[in-house]
């Protein structure tokens, strides 16, 4: 199998089918669909066949989370069999020259992102990263599939259509967010869900009334929810998006009441406290960055020991940062479980048999699908745990 030739053949077919304006060069690529849980033996064999060509990617190519923490998989309860298959997937990818980042946030948080400029074309196969990148960094990416992103890495090319073209990056709807401005990842995720559910209208929403107040974690939650619930590959917001027009566009207007988001999030907390509450908490979808990890560590500064199971998912690039590393160490001392390289949606572990709570609107959609577990939303894991006495105060 000749990797480059095959990759070019696939991209050419895609380009013809999508009636693209030829092919354009990409600066980098980000491959998904690499957990053995999804790939199975067919995907594993394909990647090994491809790697046997001895060819390598022609542009820097990063990788999405795989099925386990490469160091702590035994602690995660992953079987030897699964681990050996996952390691074969990883080694095939690494033989192809794919960087072992195993992160869903690396494209916009990792070290390559510093060199990205608005207008750069990339081929990313993680939908939350595609929305974040198009909207906040001003890069241009379609929502690629795992294989097509890999083929873009191998050729340095992508079909020129969709989000690569100016005409598809213009606002299609004006979302007016009325006071109060949403707070925290859950409320921002709920905002993304509301917008995404508008369907076709929400292709490129211009969001008015949120500028300059959003944290990175909130923008990640918004991006992830937009991609999960809608056709949205990009939003526009003043002071956030390089391409946002300074005046709200003259398009259809949809109003979102900030109080509704607040109430929805508060009632989720009430339901969680009164209901048969799961004792497992999952944070880090998208995977936590330095900012969110440090924030969590600060929230936990008065806490001596965590009683319930708290799982936090993050990335290698976060733990190799000094502040990220220190925050992770202090959380671990209190009993918080921190994993990298993976996430519960892509991994057989943890099974969350008693249900799970999360502040991620995206994973509240995917976890019930992939693991058939109930995922309850709650606003701040800490307020919830205090309410049910899961934290031992100082």
């Amino acid at each position: 199998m000749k990797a480059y030739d095959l990759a070019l053949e696939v991209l050419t077919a895609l380009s013809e089918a999508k009636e693209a304006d030829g092919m354009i060069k990409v600066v980098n690529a980000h491959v998904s669909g690499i957990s053995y849980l999804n790939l199975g033996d067919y995907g594993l064999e394909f990647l090994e066949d491809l790697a046997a060509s001895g060819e390598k990617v022609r542009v820097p190519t990063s990788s999405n989370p795989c099925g386990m923490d490469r160091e702590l998989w035994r602690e995660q309860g992953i079987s030897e069999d699964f681990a050996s298959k996952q390691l074969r997937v990883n080694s095939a990818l690494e033989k192809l020259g794919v960087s072992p980042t195993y992160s869903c946030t690396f494209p916009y948080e990792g070290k390559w992102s510093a060199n990205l400029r608005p207008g750069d074309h990339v081929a990313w196969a993680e939908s939350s990263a595609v929305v974040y990148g198009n909207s906040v960094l001003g890069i241009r990416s379609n929502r690629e599939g795992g294989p097509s992103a890999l083929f873009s890495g191998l050729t340095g090319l992508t079909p020129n259509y969709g989000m690569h073209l100016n005409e598809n990056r213009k606002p299609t709807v004006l979302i007016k967010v009325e006071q109060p401005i949403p707070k925290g990842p859950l409320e921002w995720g709920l905002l993304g869900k509301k917008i995404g559910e508008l369907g076709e209208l929400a292709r490129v929403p211009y969001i008015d009334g949120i500028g300059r107040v959003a944290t990175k974690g909130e923008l990640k939650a918004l991006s992830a929810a937009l991609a999960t619930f809608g056709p949205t590959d990009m939003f526009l917001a003043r002071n956030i998006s390089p391409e946002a027009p300074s005046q709200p566009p003259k398009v259809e207007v949809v109003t979102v009441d900030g109080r509704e988001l607040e109430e929805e999030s508060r009632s989720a907390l009430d339901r969680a406290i009164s209901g048969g509450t799961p004792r497992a908490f999952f944070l880090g979808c998208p995977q936590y960055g330095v900012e969110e990890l440090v924030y969590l560590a600060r929230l936990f500064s008065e806490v001596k020991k965590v009683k319930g199971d708290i799982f936090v998912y993050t990335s290698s690039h976060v733990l190799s940062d000094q502040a990220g590393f220190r925050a992770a160490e202090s959380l671990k001392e209190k009993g918080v479980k921190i994993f990298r390289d993976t996430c519960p949606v892509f991994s057989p572990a943890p099974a969350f048999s008693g249900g799970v709570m999360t502040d991620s609107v995206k994973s509240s959609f995917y976890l019930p699908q992939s693991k058939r577990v109930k995922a309850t939303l709650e606003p701040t894991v800490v307020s919830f745990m205090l309410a049910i006495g899961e934290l031992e105060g100082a």
Partner: protein
Amino acid sequence: MVTYSGKAIVKGNASGEALVSLKPISFLGGIDPSTGIIKDDASELKGQTVKGRILIYPTGKGSTVGSYVIYGMKKMGTAPAAIIMREADTVTIVGCVLAGIPLVHRVRPDPLQIRNGSRVSVTYDQINVDDQ
């Protein structure tokens, strides 16, 4: 004999019995790759095999890893002989190129009106259906 025509994405020749799904198909999870038997509970074709058939469906759905499943099915001999669609999705396009399975889309008239079990032959972008 009825003739349909469309746009060939993967060009080739094939013939076989039609298997028509009115619903989108997911190759990851929707089909058992070792036998080619459809196992999606939501499918009206559950229990039938795609192996060697001319598989006709509106469009694809589900994980993009499905492309590798199509490739794996070809290797094991359980893949369809050709695929005909209203509008091809990325998963099916990538899978068919990898596997070398003829793929035609944007077919007129609507290919979903082809009857299950009809003899179908695909020659590039031409589709002949023998309904007898």
